[in-house]
């Protein structure tokens, strides 16, 4: 019998700590498939951030450097400048990249560092228990916005993919989702494209992936998945914002 579906070789054969219905596992898989497709597992250095994605090294069978909270793109800059022959990516959440690490991501992008950044946006701080993130939607209740995000006081959610696309140094910027087969297929395509950019030395590539967080949203996995497709995509439009 022909095997039509298997674990990517750059993913370890272990169970993840992710909650049911969380999209991190799917996104991990898409990244691993891209690593396999481009044959870069042996020369890939991943930079893990602080948040639910901190255990990157437990799931990917690649070399990994763990960065302080928000500093992944600065750490990746150091790695890539020292080892330009390596494939270097960061994998960061919304608190990490769009709040505490805003300066680092903007300047790494603006310098056009030849790295690939995966930004997982689930509109909340997952690891610390569901506090308000810079991407939390207006009106969304979290443990630190119990009355809902108030645009007048908290500002509107930050659209990182669009924001970074403005910078000269960015070669590729896109937002994708993995909530439906159609979106997943497109996400896979864009993630591979982001890889392609670095493999070809074209500069900074950025992929924002919308993700569900059923646990902290207080929803079951199906409802959380549904929310990605409605409320989230409504505000965080899918698309390619830069494609040099």
């Amino acid at each position, binding site marked *: 019998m022909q095997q039509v579906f298997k674990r990517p070789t750059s993913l370890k054969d272990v169970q993840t700590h992710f909650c049911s219905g969380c999209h991190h596992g799917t996104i991990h898989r898409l990244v691993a498939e891209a690593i396999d497709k481009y044959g870069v597992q042996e020369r890939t*250095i991943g930079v893990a951030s602080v948040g639910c994605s901190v255990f990157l090294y437990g799931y990917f069978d690649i070399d990994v*450097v763990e*960065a302080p909270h928000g500093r992944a793109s*600065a750490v990746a*800059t*150091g790695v890539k400048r*020292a080892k330009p022959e390596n494939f270097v990516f960061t994998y960061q959440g919304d608190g990490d990249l769009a709040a505490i690490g805003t300066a680092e991501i903007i300047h790494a992008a603006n310098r056009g560092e030849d790295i690939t950044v995966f930004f997982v946006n689930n509109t909340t701080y997952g690891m610390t228990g569901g506090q308000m993130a810079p991407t939390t939607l207006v009106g969304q209740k979290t443990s630190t916005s119990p009355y809902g995000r108030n645009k007048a006081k908290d500002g509107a959610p930050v659209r990182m993919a669009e924001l970074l696309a403005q910078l000269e140094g960015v070669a590729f910027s896109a937002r994708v989702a993995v909530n439906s087969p159609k979106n997943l297929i497109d996400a896979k395509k864009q993630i591979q494209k982001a890889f392609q950019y670095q493999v070809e030395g074209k500069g900074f590539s950025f992929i924002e992936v919308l993700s569900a967080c059923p646990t902290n949203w207080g929803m079951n996995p199906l409802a959380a998945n549904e929310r990605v497709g409605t409320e989230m995509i409504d505000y965080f439009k899918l698309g390619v914002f830069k494609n040099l």
Partner: protein
Amino acid sequence: MTKRLFVKGNEAVAMAAIEAGCRYYFGYPITPQSDIPEYLSRELPKLNGEFIQAESEIASINMLLGASATGVRAMTSSSSPGISLKQEGISYMAGSELPGVIVNISRSGPGLGGIDASQADYFQSVKGGGHGGYHIIVLAPASVQEMYDLTMLAFDLADIYRMPTMILADSVVGQMKEALIANKRPVRDLPAKDWAVRGKGGGEQRVVKSLYLGDGELEAHNWKLHAKYQALKEQEVRWEEYETAGAELLVTAFGSTARIAKTAIMMAREAGLKVGLLRPITLFPFPEKALLEQTKTCKKVLVMELNAGQMVEDVRLSVARDAEVSFYGRPPGAGSLPTPEELLEQIRKHL
């Protein structure tokens, strides 16, 4: 005779870094250390190295973390307020057992303070600075030659012990010019960096991290770090003794203050006063045993610092029980640099 150059202390640091094989520098401009990035921004590109003027001190220490994780020699430099910003990254580097050289040409504080020479970062440097109860190696040069030699040593010690290593100086040592013999990098057996990330390349996965969540893992990790600190205390303590034979008063000072004190001691000796100097060169590990040894015979110690009293605490912990430790220091600020004449007066007072 080897040619003697005439260079600034800050330039000597940059020259030594290059001679030590450092090809990666990440920093952010701040007075009074900008000669270092200026020099390296000019020289590193000629050597196929990388110079990044980062968006912040926070970014630069993390670029250093990333570069060091790949096994290359890399450095950053700054001055006090910038070093405060780097503390997060230094703690992570200490936790991740990463080498790397950090230069602090310190200035006066707290806060924005001033740009004058200061030794007020002693506590921050030797007692951790960041969170988590770690140590880094701290070297305190007192001359342009030492700025050069100790910077080179810093890279070796960092690699041997897998620890961040700091050069702690101030604008007196950083801005002054003296004769320099640009020694070649010493040949030394250094441990292989078999922990550095490189892309698996068919081998075992390598991970550079400071997170330990498993039962007992973090405690074991901390004991491992602690053992390194003990090894440093056994193997790497460096200090200078000057005119200590028969001294009735032992002056203890580091860096620029030790230089000023030395002239005061020369003047004191000319006046027939029995005064010596013990100058810690490594601030961590601290020359505890040397101080104990000296104070078995010399019972009076006078600690001089360009702050309101920091190293004096470590001196008190080190000396013989019956030794009497006094302190003379001045918090930094414009026009506050002590002169040899002033320190001589203090020596007379405490003899």
